[in-house]
């Protein structure tokens, strides 16, 4: 009898473990986030579930000061490719939940990546985006949370969420499905989507991810954490631009039409913006002649566009309605310290 009880208990445990795995939807997108079992609400907290592991990134994209909880579920240990990307297996589900502390008074300056439980009594959930690796490649899927924070529903056409942050009203814009590719398809010719944060150089807690069986240990470069003031100004600024701009501004990206390359591999010179005239900036020039005027952030198109919230002028084009004051300050400081001029 005792033995029988043990077996049943074992079976139950197995069962509960089985149902507690991420549910991979190989072809279509279910109507609610819960159907994936990537995240779960337990005791008033949003927590990873189904074998998902929280990861952090070194150079996060600014999204209106939203906090982000990122998870990866990987059915097998992903090898690290030579270029630093991870060779995930079909069935991998990556999530990113955008949320804000409620009753926020001061300016949010600490994107608290890595928090592995979001207390719903003090935070407001906005949206959760998934990148799912299917046989056909990576699929983007967006879910928008209801105000009661009980359910996130599929929203393919995007949404507008009016918010107030530190007294400033703004419209938080959830992108539509095509717009996901606007960032995640970094090669405009192949238009193949891939993760931007879940890569060797970007993952901050790499050791934890190795131990958790998400990725193999592999020697790849580490992208600088632009918030780390112990690092050099140049490393921080270049990492900020790479993290926030290079998905489009790379030699084969959607913004290669501009001739401006902000990836980490760009050479210092006109291709990286130094003394580079605008091509199709329109109102984005702010009246300035060069993307970067060395030593003169006030006369640089780059700082003007980062500090704008006009849809026709601002950069990045999508994904923010507020100015990232700390990011602008970093780029201003970087440009201010550049020597030389543009011969004018």
């Amino acid at each position, binding site marked *: 009898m005792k033995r029988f009880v043990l077996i049943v208990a074992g079976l139950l445990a197995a069962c509960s473990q089985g149902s507690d795995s991420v549910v991979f939807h190989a072809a279509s997108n279910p109507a609610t986030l819960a159907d994936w079992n990537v995240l779960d609400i337990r005791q008033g907290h949003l927590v990873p579930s189904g074998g998902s592991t929280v990861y952090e990134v070194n150079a996060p994209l600014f999204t209106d000061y939203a906090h982000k909880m990122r998870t990866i579920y990987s059915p097998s240990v992903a090898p690290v490719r030579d270029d630093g990307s991870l060779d995930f297996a079909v069935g991998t589900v990556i999530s990113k939940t955008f949320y804000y502390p409620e009753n926020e008074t001061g300016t949010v300056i600490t994107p608290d990546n890595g928090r592995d439980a979001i207390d719903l009594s003090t935070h407001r959930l906005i949206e959760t985006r998934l990148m799912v690796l299917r046989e056909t490649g990576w699929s983007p899927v967006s879910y928008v949370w209801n105000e009661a924070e009980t359910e996130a529903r599929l929203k393919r056409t995007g949404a507008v969420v009016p918010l107030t942050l530190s007294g400033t009203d703004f419209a938080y814009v959830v992108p539509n499905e095509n*717009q996901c590719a606007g960032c995640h398809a970094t090669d405009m010719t192949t238009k193949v989507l891939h993760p931007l944060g879940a890569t060797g150089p970007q993952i901050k807690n790499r050791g934890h991810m190795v131990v958790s069986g998400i990725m193999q240990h592999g020697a790849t470069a580490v992208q600088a954490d632009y918030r780390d003031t112990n690092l050099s100004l140049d490393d921080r600024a270049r990492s900020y631009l790479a993290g926030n701009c290079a998905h489009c501004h790379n030699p084969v990206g959607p913004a*290669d*039409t501009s001739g401006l390359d902000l990836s980490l591999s760009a050479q210092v010179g*006109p291709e990286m913006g130094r003394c580079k005239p*605008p091509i199709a900036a329109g109102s984005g020039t702010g009246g300035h002649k060069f993307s970067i005027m060395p030593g003169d952030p006030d006369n640089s198109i780059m700082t003007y566009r980062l500090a704008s919230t006009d849809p026709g002028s601002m950069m990045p084009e*999508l994904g923010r309605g507020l100015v990232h004051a700390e990011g602008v300050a970093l780029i201003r400081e970087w440009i201010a310290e550049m020597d030389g001029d543009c*011969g004018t």
Partner: protein
Amino acid sequence: MRKLLLGTALFLAACSQADTPVATDEAYQDTLQLALLDAKPGDIITIPAGTHSLDRGLSLAADGVTIRGEGMDVSILSFKGQIAGAEGLLVTGDNVVLENFAVEDSKGDAIKINDTDGVTVRGVRVEWTGEAKTENGAYGLYPVQTTNVLIEDVVAIGASDAGIYVGQSRGVIVRNSRAERNVAGIEIENTQDADVYGNLTTDNTGGILVFNMPGLTQPGGRVRVYDNDVYENDRSNFGHPGTPVASIPAGSGVVINSHDDVEIFENRIRDNRTANIIIASVYSSNFADSSFSDTFDPYPDRIHVHSNELSGGGNKPDGMELKAAKTVKFGLTGHFPHVLWDGYARGDEDPKICIEEPNAEVFNADLPNESKNMRVEMDLHRCTLPRLPAVTLNAG
């Protein structure tokens, strides 16, 4: 009393136009964007009659899709209340047909088509309503890095850069279209094999521009501009300071900048107050001091101007230096010849700027020598060039 009522009615009308906040038609916005997301090759997405107010940019990524309205003045997508998106409509799918609708008042560009093969835009209107002003979006129609592009019967109004702009593309026809009240009416930039014909450009700052800019994926080459009406493009430049077009003088008919192999023929070009035709190098633009790569060719070579009807213009050039040059050389009541050249050429090589026009002379502004020897000259320009081939588009 009747008069008073009329006055009141007008006043109310004015008020309602200015003050009514634009209510987004969210249901339609969702419906249309969902149709764009779900579109499969061969699908036709229709835009019903009416003005549809949208607050976010639309995007189409699928191949082989047609978006069709009931007419450029009937099916209108209005972005007056736009809060997000750098354009009204972004197209990234191949072999897309856009026809018979309008995009109005987008915050950035009206329609951008990026990195695709096979573009047809037909009977579409892109417009910034109200005053032509600097705050308007940059480009009306904006295919860039595209191949096999047909733009016909479109209307572009009010762009603070170019109404119809084709950039870094190959195999392009822009025909039978109208561009008014833009900074640049039609601009072909860093594009290879383009035919621009049967168009009407008037009341822009510059009528038709053929530009080659440094630092881009490809240089421009082989552009034919013919059978167009280009007149009275005298509007004050309202481009954003710092943009390349902001240096275009008001009253420019056809402008060639740093571009090789351009044939301008059988156009009717008249009454553009700075000059009917301007041929220049990047050295006389805003960006004379920018650093170019060694591979960039800043000089316009092999420019063939012939068989045009040229009249009027050149009488009231824009900008102090041009005004002074005109007055010094031609008097207060005189005018520039039909062709204005900044004088930049590679060393002492013949740039082959060939003007085969009985009534046209060339004014060389001699900018390389600080205009010390401004002169009317024709000897250098009595030459001819082989005709450029017509553009043929590959069917998608």
